[in-house]
């Protein structure tokens, strides 16, 4: 005969008779073990708990009520504060966008300002070169100094022209394009240029009113750059 395990006996005790009690009735060994277990478990029933009087519930409520009130107030306060928090959140969001927009505008402006000032400087230097060419006597003029200047100006002119195109400033890009062709002619002019070549160059500057355009553009660029 298989005897009941200790776990089954514990289960039997708590199930209050439901379960395999037929076996316990029939098996002396299991009955003895069950009665021992029952005796122990019933002895533990007398675990003393400090007595609490009839008014204990009221005492608990008296302690609890302030905490519940506080909780209720906090809850209400939360509801009152919620719109303020929401407004702050929205304001923060708007300020963030506005600041970002302003920062972006400021960055664009400073970039444009640097470009305009650099362009103005470049055009002033080009203007000096063009003036020297205009006032030179073609037959006796030595181009060597102007050629060096033109080569120096040429690289910067290309960069400024590309920047003007990128910025969509067509008028400045057009002036720089005209200027670039003249600078290119000067930079590539042979050391022993004939007086006729020089004269053709002067006529070109004159016919395109390049000196005037360069002066106006330089002046406009400086003025706009200073405003920014």
């Amino acid at each position, binding site marked *: 005969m298989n005897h009941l395990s200790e776990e089954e006996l514990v289960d039997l005790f*708590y199930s209050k008779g439901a379960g395999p009690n037929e076996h316990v009735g029939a098996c002396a060994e299991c009955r003895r073990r069950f009665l021992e277990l029952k005796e122990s478990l019933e002895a533990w029933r007398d675990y003393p708990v*400090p007595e609490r009087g009839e008014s204990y519930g009221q005492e608990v*409520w008296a302690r609890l009520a302030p905490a519940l009130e506080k909780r209720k107030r906090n809850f209400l306060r939360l509801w009152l504060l919620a719109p303020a928090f929401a407004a702050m959140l929205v304001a923060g969001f708007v300020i963030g966008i506005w600041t970002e927009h302003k920062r972006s505008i400021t960055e664009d402006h400073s970039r444009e300002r640097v470009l305009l000032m650099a362009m103005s400087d470049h055009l002033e230097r080009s203007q000096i070169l063009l003036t020297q060419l205009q006032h030179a006597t073609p037959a006796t003029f030595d181009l060597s100094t102007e050629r060096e200047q033109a080569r120096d100006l040429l690289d910067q002119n290309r960069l400024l022209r590309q920047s003007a195109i990128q910025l969509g400033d067509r008028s400045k890009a057009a002036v720089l394009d005209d200027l670039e062709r003249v600078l290119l002619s000067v930079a590539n002019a042979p050391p022993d240029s004939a007086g006729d070549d020089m004269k053709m160059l002067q006529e070109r500057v004159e016919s395109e009113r390049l000196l005037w355009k360069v002066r106006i553009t330089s002046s406009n660029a400086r003025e706009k750059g200073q405003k920014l």
Partner: protein
Amino acid sequence: MDWSDQAAAEAACKGDQAAFRVLVERHSRSVFRLAFRMCGNEHDAEDLVQETFLRAYKQLGRFDGRSAFGTWLYRICANCTLDLLRSRKSRREVKNTREPENERHWLDTVAAPGPGPERLTQSSQIVGLLEPALRQLSEMERTAFVLRHYEGCDIDEIARTLGVQANAAKHSVFRAVQKLRRALEPAWGAAR
């Protein structure tokens, strides 16, 4: 007004504090009994009663009336006590790593020749040893045992409270009984 638990819980859920007061006054003593048996300390039990009702108030919306309000409250109390016992245990573990001499404290009380089993001839003296023995159970074993032995909860209810399968709850009860018997057998044998 003579509220039923269900009606009072519904009214309290809608913000009626008088209804919640009825529930507090009605169930405080039984919650205290459960808390005391689970934690074995009067002061902690008082705090647990407070915590149980606060938690119940917060969670009233979750009470669906499928079980009795008292059962629902017991579950909250058991969980509050479990939280307390677990936090105590983790603190004690930290402390014991520094003070290993504390480890055999309760065993000395039960098994050592100190008071002597020959003096423990009354079952009331067994009860005096019960608390130290209960303290040696895991939180889950103690909760399962208290709910089964003193509160008469069935295994499914204990399993729901502990958040475990019924078999695990049943086994926790068994392990608790087994450990308690081993711890108390010398004294119990003498008393018999």
